[in-house]
């Protein structure tokens, strides 16, 4: 026995002290680790930016990897009208896109539109559960984007759904107010037709409070979803004087959609910075008005403009309006109207700025910057509020219905609501998103009789967690121009071809989600990352038996999908 006797841990030594290949696998270096990498999916900022909470990076990913149908199906899990929202949504997702801080944001709406159009062309149908008669029926009031979305979400889960609509056609504000150059009517019709083909019962010309009451619905249906929209224009209150001749922007747009014509003015001033103002301005130019001015207290898009200060209108529409000849006066507010008798002949403007200090609302107007602009008409386009018809018992005279974050109507038993009738609305994507969320809650309520707790805000992947060294600079794809005629009523752009859409989707940085780029697998000095054929969120498995915790995988992960956490 030698002086160094120890427990035998190895076979006896041989001539030449040779070792057999890959016997190091007996040596588990995982014990070296004080931190371990963990694959941790984090939501992308676009997901937070999107009022519909679409899983944008997921469907962009599917699109980029060649699965177009899968991308569309992922997209319509949340949004049943991609062809519509791809055209009319102001796409705040793109403003929040991290790629925008690198070179320029992914053209998400263009890919969405392309997918929607492709689905129409290919006549793809929604994945649906068959109707389940054991589930309680659901009533939906209002066939605008919010009501239709809720109906779709419930129908998809197997519920029998009836949609009540005051007008003769479904579509709500999308149909009544958005001009054809922004949304071809055929696109709207196709999306609505596909939706109703899923077996949703549509009851047009049924006005709440006139043809049926909320109480009746409550007793006949398991749950009621209210999506009446905001049918009443917000009061334009300037110094207490409102001339009789003044008309609201949405009214004029609806009039154009209904009868195909509107009055002409030599010089018109539209007040408001949203899409209604922009649509109206452009419609007025097309219908023969002379000068069209937009007055908005918000700012034009630009490098220095914060999200809070920005005009809510679709940036692309702003650019188009300007190029068509609309004059926009940003950071201005109307101090008073200048009247001659009952007629407006001008407005007094003042420099103003929307309050943008965190936690503040309203605006600051700056004395000493007043000016006068003469005009023969002033049209407020400053938003809509709830019309109380039939809702008196629940509206209590407020401009919006009071709901929690799940869309559950405060104080009600089985009523949910979403869309423009609720706070925070005003866009198609909000309508879709809030309806989607309410539908989730409704489903939970109907199947388990519970209301889920308020939706909790998570935070998106911070920009710093991306490793941008792995991405080349690239410019966004631009859609082909279809109409070069100025002031055309046709859509100015065609949608992306599938190939171009795929390229654009490929620009997605996949924030917080696995790109399957193989970086972790390739760059691990300890071969502790294994690739598997598994189709989970990522195809990689960390072998903690060998991972020494160096952190290279996390640092080099281009999408911030890997986090280092202290060893338990």
């Amino acid at each position, binding site marked *: 026995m*030698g002086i160094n006797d120890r427990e035998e841990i190895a076979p006896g*030594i041989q*001539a*030449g002290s040779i070792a057999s290949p890959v016997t190091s696998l007996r040596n588990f270096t995982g014990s070296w680790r004080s931190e371990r990498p963990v694959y941790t999916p984090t939501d992308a900022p676009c997901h937070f930016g999107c009022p519909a909470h679409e899983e944008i990076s997921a469907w962009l990913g599917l699109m980029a990897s060649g699965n177009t149908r899968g991308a569309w199906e992922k997209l319509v899990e949340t949004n049943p009208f991609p062809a519509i929202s791809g055209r009319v949504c102001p796409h705040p997702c793109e403003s929040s896109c991290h790629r925008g801080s690198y070179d320029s944001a992914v053209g998400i709406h263009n890919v969405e539109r392309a997918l929607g159009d492709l689905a129409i062309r290919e006549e793809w149908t929604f994945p649906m559960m068959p109707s389940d008669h054991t589930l309680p029926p659901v009533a939906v009031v209002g066939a605008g984007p919010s009501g239709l979305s809720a109906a779709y979400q419930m129908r998809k889960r197997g519920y029998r759904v009836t949609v009540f609509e005051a007008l003769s056609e479904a579509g709500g504000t999308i149909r009544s107010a958005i001009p054809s150059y922004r949304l071809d009517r055929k696109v709207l019709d196709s999306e609505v037709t596909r939706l109703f083909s899923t077996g949703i019962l549509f009851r047009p010309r049924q006005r709440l409070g006139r043809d049926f009451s909320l109480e009746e619905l409550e007793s006949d249906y398991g749950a009621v979803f209210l999506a009446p929209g905001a049918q009443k224009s917000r009061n334009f209150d300037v110094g207490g004087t409102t001339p009789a001749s003044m008309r609201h922007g949405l009214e004029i747009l609806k009039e154009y959609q209904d009868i195909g014509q509107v009055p002409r003015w030599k010089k018109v001033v539209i007040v408001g910075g949203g899409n209604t103002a922009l649509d109206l301005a452009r419609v007025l130019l097309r219908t023969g008005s002379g000068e069209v001015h937009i007055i908005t207290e918000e700012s034009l898009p630009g490098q220095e403009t914060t999200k809070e200060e920005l005009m809510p209108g679709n940036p692309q529409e702003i650019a188009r309006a300007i190029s068509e000849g609309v004059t926009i006066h940003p950071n201005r507010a109307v101090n008073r109207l200048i009247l001659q008798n009952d007629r407006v002949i001008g407005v007094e403007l003042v420099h103003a700025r929307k309050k943008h200090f965190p936690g503040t609302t309203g605006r600051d107007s700056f004395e000493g910057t007043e000016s006068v602009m003469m005009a023969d008409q002033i049209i407020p386009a400053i938003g809509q509020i709830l019309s109380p018809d039939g809702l008196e018992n629940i509206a209590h005279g407020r401009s919006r219905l009071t709901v929690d974050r799940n869309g559950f109507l405060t104080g009600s038993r089985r009523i949910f609501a979403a869309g423009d009738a609720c706070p925070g609305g005003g866009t198609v994507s909000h309508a879709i998103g809030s309806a989607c969320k309410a539908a989730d809650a409704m489903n939970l309520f109907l199947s388990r009789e519970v209301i889920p707790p308020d939706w909790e805000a998570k935070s998106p992947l911070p920009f710093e967690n991306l490793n941008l060294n792995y991405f080349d600079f690239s410019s966004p794809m631009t859609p082909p121009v279809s109409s070069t005629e100025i002031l055309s009523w046709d859509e100015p752009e065609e949608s992306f071809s599938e190939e171009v859409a795929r390229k654009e989707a490929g620009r997605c940085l996949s924030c917080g989600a696995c790109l399957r780029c193989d970086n972790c697998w390739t760059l691990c000095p300890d071969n502790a990352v294994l690739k598997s054929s598994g189709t989970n969120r990522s195809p990689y498995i960390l072998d903690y038996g060998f991972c020494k915790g160096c952190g290279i995988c996390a640092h080099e992960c281009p999408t911030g999908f890997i986090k280092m956490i202290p060893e338990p």
Partner: protein
Amino acid sequence: MLEALEGSQAIARAVAMCRPQVVAAYPITPQTHIVEGLSGLISSGTLSAQYISVESEFSAASVVMGASAAGSRSYTASAAQGILLMTEVLYNTAGLRIPTVMTVANRAVSAPLSIWNDHQDSMSVRDSGWIQLYCASNQEAVDTTIQAFFISEKTEIPVMVCVDGYTLTHTLEPVDLPAQEDVDAFLPPFRFRRTLDPGAPLTVGTLVSPDFFTEARYINHQAIENAKEIIREADDLFFGLTGRRSGALISQSGNPSGKTGVLVMGSVFGTLSDALASHDEKDQIRLLKLRSFRPFPNEELREAVRGLETLIVLDRSLSPGSGGGILGMEVRSALFGQKSAPRIINAVAGLGGRDLPLSLLGSLVNLSKSPDTPEFLFADIKRSRISEEIFPVKKTNHAEKSSWKNFP
């Protein structure tokens, strides 16, 4: 068939008959003619092998190590500084148990610079783990070279064939080269168990912890001890083929019951043999030829010296400050504590090419006759050739006195 050949050419021809696949060498006197001969044989197509003209002996040793490790029979040759430059690789090759054969054209090690023969070079790497066989003639050089491949490949230990530089390498004399068929029968094609093969990958050259290093060294030691049997076997088998022996581990001539023994390595053995034939006291003299210095044949040596009163060990190398020549120390160590061990006189002579004449035998034998002869002496030193500054003429001691007396 007997041919008159220069030693180097004979060795080159013998190597070629062993069909090495890779030869690598760097020129150094007096090894150069061997590798020139081999590159000539390759150039003329007589031998099919890769000849790698490296940029140093260090690389020569490394190339043959790599080649053998990758399964090709390999060969190199060097001398003196070349051997010392190789030292690190020599230890490595032996430690990894990679078979290869190297001819050492024995030469003194600088400084002072000497290109002439002694054994300092191979002796300096005696602990590298290589087998070391010393040759007394060019015939033995040829036969031992062929046996060396057999021994190396069977033991998986590299073998140095030590041939006195110039004295043998540059001397033309009759040599009987065996027939190629006989060599082929004696030496099967090289198959290395631990070869580098992508089909069966092995890791060679590992880091061995203190827990196992001793065992690894023990294996190496045991293997070279076991090589004695293989060395004998090779000599026997070779005898069966050619009728010639090279003396296995140790051999003797003269009177086996003579009381005075003279033990040498290398070509001086022939000179002493010739001298013995006409020596007045030839019946009293037993000549011992040590062929295998590594492994050192302790047992066989003890047997060979049985009955001797005096054993004179002639050393062709020196370990300064050790109080002896290197071979002398080994012999003393082997015989230490043996009952009736002979008196041992260790004489260093023939350093740096100093001629060892026929008269050497008589001089050595005379040493045994004086009880005053020290245990160790420089046998052929010429005091007049040392600066008086260092060595005042009047000052004498026993060692110098006795050598002075015997070497006019």
